């Protein structure tokens, strides 16, 4: 299993870095973040609002397999086309609080580009909780058992 995405999450820190190289020109990569119809496709979410500008705000909504709706929202602090988005992110009503996201878009060649995400959480504990809910449904239970089993091999 070869994953192209790099995650850097040092123990005990309240931040996280995600980086990925794309076989796409920079403009197309950036477009995937700013065009609601495109964003909906790859994020698997509904875009209720997306104001691509400084002091704009955004709001997404997803529907889980049981039909429950979940809202995500935030404000855009900085918006530099083809270069940078700084925004906040919050899962509404979950108690996870707000996180600050720095998205840096960079051209490597004419046909390739890179995205670096730097996410800052309010605390290291919240960061770890957030990482865990990123797991697909059904997997987290298996994961708990696996972790128990893995303890034996440490």
């Amino acid at each position: 299993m070869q994953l192209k995405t790099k995650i850097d999450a040092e123990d005990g820190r309240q931040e996280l870095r995600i980086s990925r190289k794309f076989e796409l020109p920079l403009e197309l990569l950036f477009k995937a973040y700013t065009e609601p119809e495109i964003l909906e496709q790859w994020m698997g979410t509904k875009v209720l609002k997306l104001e691509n500008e400084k002091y704009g705000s955004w709001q997404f909504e997803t529907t889980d397999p049981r039909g429950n709706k979940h809202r995500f929202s935030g404000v855009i602090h900085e918006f530099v086309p083809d270069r940078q988005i700084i925004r906040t992110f919050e899962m509404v009503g979950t108690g996870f609080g707000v996180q600050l996201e720095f998205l840096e878009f960079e051209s490597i060649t004419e046909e390739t580009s890179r995205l670096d995400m730097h996410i800052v959480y309010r605390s290291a504990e919240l960061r770890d909780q957030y990482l865990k809910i990123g797991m697909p449904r059904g997997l987290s239970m298996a994961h708990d058992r696996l972790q128990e089993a893995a303890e034996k091999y440490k």
Partner: protein
Amino acid sequence: MELRRDVFQAIADPTRRAIITLVALQAMTPSAIAENFDSSRQTISKHIQILRECELLEQEQNGREIYYQLNPHKMKEIADFIEPFRKLWDDRFNKLEAIMKNYQPGTPKD
């Protein structure tokens, strides 16, 4: 059926998770594993095969018997919660890449 070597898909199946939990306690023969399930031997051996393909189970020959045990290295890889998170983002980004590769600009909006 398509062969899946993706370790996360492998453990998304409840029977396979149950097999892992069993074998985590001790190395077991295929028949000893199968005794724990209502499914046919064949079904169970298919599950074992998939777990072997993604290297979660290791095979060990002991006399005439084959024993299966957990691969601690692979286990640690999944037990580390960063990996499922990384996989989630990687899937997402792969999708983004695939969509944009086929992107045909329509009427410009801005």
